[in-house]
């Protein structure tokens, strides 16, 4: 016993080191997977407050760019106004009033912090549960999909961006409707890898990739990117497709958080009954 105490006294720093590393490792394992990200909302409020202050300052530098983005967006919205549509009384081609079929609500938010230092990147938005944002909502910008909300506090929310190896998004080829899984391979922040498309499917450089909308997080047909290059995987005979992401996630400033009004219906339908 006395000897043991002596050893402990001599090497206590090593034991303490190992203990602290163990704590670090359990944090690493526990809080870094998609579904297990901690609900640390008080931490969010503190870090969010800091990032908001910085964002307020740096935003002025980017005003010109942001204005252009907004103008572009206005143009698109104008195109969607009622007067931009052709009204037809032809009974074979009735004009459908889409407002009665509203499926997704768009909420605007601003990116106040955007990490790109690891294979698992997150961004922080300046809107939280008070603005109606909930976990598992999709996030897009004008150019394409950006990520999924993983954590919400009162005034802020954390988004797992598509530049995160834990996030896999179901997508399809617009031209042929074949399904695949999109994930990030950490090589290039502008590109991601599309897997699970079988070798017999004909693909071309520049083909458009869009969302399926099966999980109810993103609507159908939201732009994801275009095909940059592709090779065959010898083992599975599937395509390994490199996709140019259309949403410039690194520079994303204004984003939309999407709420699917019918999401509970989808969840109810897809979870097997007990």
């Amino acid at each position, binding site marked *: 016993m006395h000897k043991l105490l002596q050893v402990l006294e001599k090497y206590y*720093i090593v034991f*303490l*080191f190992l203990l*602290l*590393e163990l*704590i*670090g*490792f*359990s*944090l*690493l*394992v*526990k*809080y*870094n997977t998609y579904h297990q*990200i*901690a609900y*640390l909302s008080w*931490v969010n409020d503190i*870090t969010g407050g*800091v990032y908001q202050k*910085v964002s307020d300052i740096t935003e002025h530098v980017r005003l010109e760019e942001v204005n252009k983005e907004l103008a572009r967006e206005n143009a698109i919205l104008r195109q969607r106004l009622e007067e931009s549509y052709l009204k037809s009384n032809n009974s074979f081609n009735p004009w459908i009033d889409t407002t009665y079929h509203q499926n997704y609500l768009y909420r605007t938010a601003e990116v106040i912090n*955007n*990490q*790109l*230092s*690891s*294979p*698992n990147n*997150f961004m922080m938005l300046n809107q939280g549960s008070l603005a109606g944002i909930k976990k598992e909502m999709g996030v897009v910008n004008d150019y394409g999909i950006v990520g999924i909300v993983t954590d919400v506090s009162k005034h802020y929310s*954390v988004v797992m961006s598509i530049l995160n*190896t*834990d996030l896999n998004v179901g997508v399809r080829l617009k031209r042929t409707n074949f399904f695949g899984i999109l994930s*990030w*391979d*950490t*090589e*290039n*922040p502008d590109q991601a890898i599309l897997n699970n498309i079988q070798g017999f499917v004909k693909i071309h450089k520049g083909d458009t990739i869009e969302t399926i909308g099966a999980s109810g997080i993103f609507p159908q047909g939201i732009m994801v990117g275009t095909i940059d290059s592709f090779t065959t995987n010898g083992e599975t005979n599937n395509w390994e497709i490199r996709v140019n992401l259309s949403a410039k996630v*690194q520079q994303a400033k204004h984003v939309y958080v999407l709420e699917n009004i019918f999401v509970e219906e989808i969840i109810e339908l897809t979870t097997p009954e007990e």
Partner: protein
Amino acid sequence: MTSEIIQNILRWILLMAIQILVFNNIYIGGVYNPFIYVLIILSLPIEASALVTLLIGFFTGFILDVFSHTYGLHTMAFTLFGFLRPIVLRLVAPRDGYAFGSNANVLDMQLGRYSAYALLLIFSHHLLLFVLEGFSGGSVGSITMKVLVNTFLTFIVVLVSQSFTRKRA
């Protein structure tokens, strides 16, 4: 003594702010960013005890993790940094030990000794950091590349920072 503690606390705040607000947003070549916060432990007084250094490493790493949503990653890497620092200091010490009251900077330690000290610690820190990060994706090649390039970048930034140190009167 008190002024030294205050000086170290101020340095901690300054370096954390620079790391979180500036360097975490700089990506050289798309994926590389220097970790200037290693200076927090690099610049501690040479007499700082192993226990204090270790605890500072753990605490600082955790705070940085909170801000970058990488729970555990910097905690583990910087705890290792804090643990190794007294060992590396002893390893590169001059034959008759450090002069009393000397600081861990280029002026007091000479360029060669300081470089060995900083490089050894930065490399081991970055190695653990990127290997842990790599578990969730990334090939051996890209991890090696990240470790080497980032070690180089951080080392350069640390050396540049040393040009701001002045000899104490």
